[in-house]
């Protein structure tokens, strides 16, 4: 029979060093922590929080397009909205958009990066068809790393399978 050992080990040492007396492991394997320079930079460029709806007539504003499970197909409303964004980009060659592909929380992280990328490509292909130059379209996939809604249920999953279209400043 299996015997269950209840051995609770509370390890107090998981603290970052605050005083010099609390030293890291031997110098041959020491770790230099915390890239401090990053803080200033990242603070200025914080990501924008989640997202707006889908407007079919207004170009130039952030949009979100939703997808079915394991699918890249865009519905008619999304298509109309993307075309409106295309018109805006054609009229404003100095502007560009960032497409952010996302998936729901199921599956491996890196495979979901690729699935999010496929959703970006679906949106990109409509923009390209409308004549938008590729240099005005930037694509990144976040896979399941940046859900809009937390939860392990169909409602949350549906809200996370999306592409965010964002007008980048500068």
């Amino acid at each position, binding site marked *: 029979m299996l015997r269950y*050992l209840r051995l609770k*080990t509370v390890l107090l040492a998981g603290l970052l060093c*605050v005083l010099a007396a609390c030293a890291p492991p031997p110098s041959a*394997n020491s770790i230099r922590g*915390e*890239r401090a320079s990053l803080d200033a930079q990242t603070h200025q460029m914080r990501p924008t929080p989640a997202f707006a709806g889908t407007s079919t007539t207004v170009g130039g504003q952030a949009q979100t397009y939703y997808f079915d499970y394991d699918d890249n197909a865009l519905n008619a409303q999304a298509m109309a909205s993307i075309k409106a964004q295309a018109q805006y980009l054609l009229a404003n060659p100095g502007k560009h958009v*960032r497409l952010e592909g996302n998936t729901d929380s199921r599956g491996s992280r890196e495979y979901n990066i690729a699935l999010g*990328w496929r959703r970006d490509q679906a949106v990109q292909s409509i923009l390209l068809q409308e004549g938008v130059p590729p240099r005005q379209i930037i694509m990144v*996939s976040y896979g399941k790393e940046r859900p809009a809604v937390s939860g392990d249920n169909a409602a949350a999953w549906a809200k996370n399978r999306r592409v965010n279209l964002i007008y980048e400043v500068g």
Partner: protein
Amino acid sequence: MWPMLLGLSIALSASLAFADLQLTLTQGQPNAQPVAVVPFAGQAVASPLDVDDTQNIAQIIRQDLSSTGQFRIPPLSRWQAWATAPGSVPAAKWRAKGMNDVVWGAVTAEGDQRRVNFSLLSLYQADKKQTQPARWQQQYTVAATQLRALAHQLSDIIYQRLTGVRGNFSTRLAYVLVQKPAGQSLPVYRLQVSDADGANAVTLLKSWWPIMSPAWSPDGQSLAYVSFEGNRAAVYLQNLATAKRQRLSAAQGINGAPAFSPDGRQIALVLSRTGNPKIYLMDLASGHLKQVTFGRSIDTEPAFSPDGQQLVFTSNRGGQPQIYQLALKSGQITRLTFNGNYNAHAQFLPSGSGLVLMHRGQEGFQIAILQLSNHHWTLLSNTGVDESPSVAPNGQMIVYATRMGARNSLAQVALDGRTRLRLPTASGSVREPAWSPFLTH
């Protein structure tokens, strides 16, 4: 170096509280070996030296060995009566208490150094026959601050002598910690490295953007990872001792899934520059890129075999994600998984004889082992939301990410499934663990 480290540390402690990982055994083996670990002289309660539990060698050895599930170690206080002269206790007395082996030692101060004497007494052979007791002893001198590290090394020695297998106690875990600070709408991501037992966590990178896929260099000196700083995916290589990093790849689109070759000279990674996610090999010295998978499928999650001759990877070229193997010399590609319709995140076992991977079965996502010689599958976990397995360098234990309640946390399971541990965090979500190579030589 010290003033700089101090400054960084204070800046950090003023911001967020990071999370400890607390290693907790939930299932051990039924035939665990009994080992007596006696409190070390000089480290007993109310001793003038090192009263802090975090440097208590006997305590750490007990925790380390117990965490394998292979040893049953009574509380240190059981041996209090014999703690003043454990070397004088007759073997018959230890045997009468049911012990197979005994560990004891002493710590004395020499300024800010510590001299540690260590003894391991073996009373039984593996076949349970009584044997002439065999005592192995050693002496060490270390800085007072290095007692915990020494304790892990002693655990390694004991484990190797008692099982014939190298211990994991001086290895490390890398992982990603995600926390939502109070009053903030956005989460903060950290790349962290801790000891294998979760202690001594250090933040390597703190970011407003996601961090993914930490991968250890074979010499244990660097970590490659994916970061989305500035809303762009890029692969970085960061040296642990200096915190210096270089950006290895920032092509348009996907830069992902870095994996080192066993000789440390190449990194496999995923790029989408052809319009499809494909696997490339980058020579680290020259930066030269070579595409090694082709076609219109999604190929991702490359992992080298221990002999460096093969890559396994995840691909949907057959319709659904499955594991394929690429022979690097010939270019031949073979499908490896035919069980279920979703297999991903394969890693070779150190022996090269099998893979640990993420498998979608009846219950959802589970960790599984696939033996390559006979295609035999073993399912190791069962919450349905298990992912990101990584194997310990001695091949005995797997760490993976799972969910406890609303948060991700880590768990460990032995390759035979008989020992299980949890590593819950005090706060936040922990994911994407990567077990370091052996770090001591």
